[in-house]
């Protein structure tokens, strides 16, 4: 029962963070400001609505993975697979958000602006992307370490 509760709470966290909060924040914006946010798409390549939709889908995937991780035993290969896949999905969404919708940019975002001739903005968040990679690597290492020792200490 306690395991199920933990799994549900953990899954709810991802749903609230990625699926509910972004959509709610856009919905709660004053109408004039909301129209400005949606107008960004006309002047740049940034599509806020698309980013929110992707965050919503990724939030649901992460919630499912988190639920599955908490419902499986730490020594099971399924637990490790789900944990590593969860890290990969989390890494993808952070690169997606850092790249303002373009995860391949790896933190170096070139935004052509439809205003004036050849106007561009460049956002350099490479260092943050590198920190993100390190966090993913350490988190994956932690999952492997937990799995290794759980398997060793697994009751016969």
């Amino acid at each position, binding site marked *: 029962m306690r395991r199920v509760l933990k799994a549900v709470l953990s899954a709810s966290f991802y749903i609230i963070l990625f699926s509910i909060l972004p959509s709610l924040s856009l919905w709660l914006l004053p109408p004039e400001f909301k129209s400005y946010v949606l107008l960004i798409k006309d002047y740049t390549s940034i599509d806020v609505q698309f980013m929110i939709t992707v965050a919503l889908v990724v939030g649901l995937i992460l919630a499912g993975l988190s639920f599955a991780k908490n419902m499986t035993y730490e020594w099971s290969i399924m637990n490790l697979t789900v944990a590593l896949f969860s890290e990969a999905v989390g890494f993808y969404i952070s690169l997606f958000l850092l790249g303002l919708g373009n995860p391949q940019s790896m933190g170096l975002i070139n935004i052509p602006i439809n205003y004036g001739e050849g106007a561009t903005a460049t956002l350099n968040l490479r260092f943050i992307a590198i920190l993100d990679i390190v966090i993913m690597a350490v988190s994956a290492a932690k999952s492997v370490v*937990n799995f290794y020792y759980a398997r060793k200490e697994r009751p016969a």
Partner: protein
Amino acid sequence: MKRKASKILSAAIIVLYVSLLIVSSTSLFSISSTLVGSLERVEDVRFDSTMNPLTGVVDLAVRVPIRNRGIIEVNVSVAVKLVSADGTVVAEGSDSRRIGPGETEELLVVATFLRGTVDGADLSFECRAFFDLVGLSFSMRVETPTEGYPSP
């Protein structure tokens, strides 16, 4: 053993997340505040030019006041490239300053060119923070007014 290894990795993850939060929030806040603080004073940008009537050489000086309203030091640079009709760079100038939080500095860009040779200008503005690791830059091309400096 498991607990120790797991605890060390958990602590490392927390430290990294906190670092990520600090770096991104302080840098992006300082950069955006500097940008907003400077745009608020865009009317204070001064263009001074002098022309030698005999040689036709024009000295152009652009003074851009930059105000850092952020919480960490930023490195701001402004560059101007004057280009001819065929896209050749006729003259260029740039300036950069490290500006502490709450400080205002004036960047001075000087360019010298022959009258009638300039058809446009590539302007760029760059603001970097946190040991220049995080940055935002803008660049755009503008057509230059030619009334003051007619072709010979």
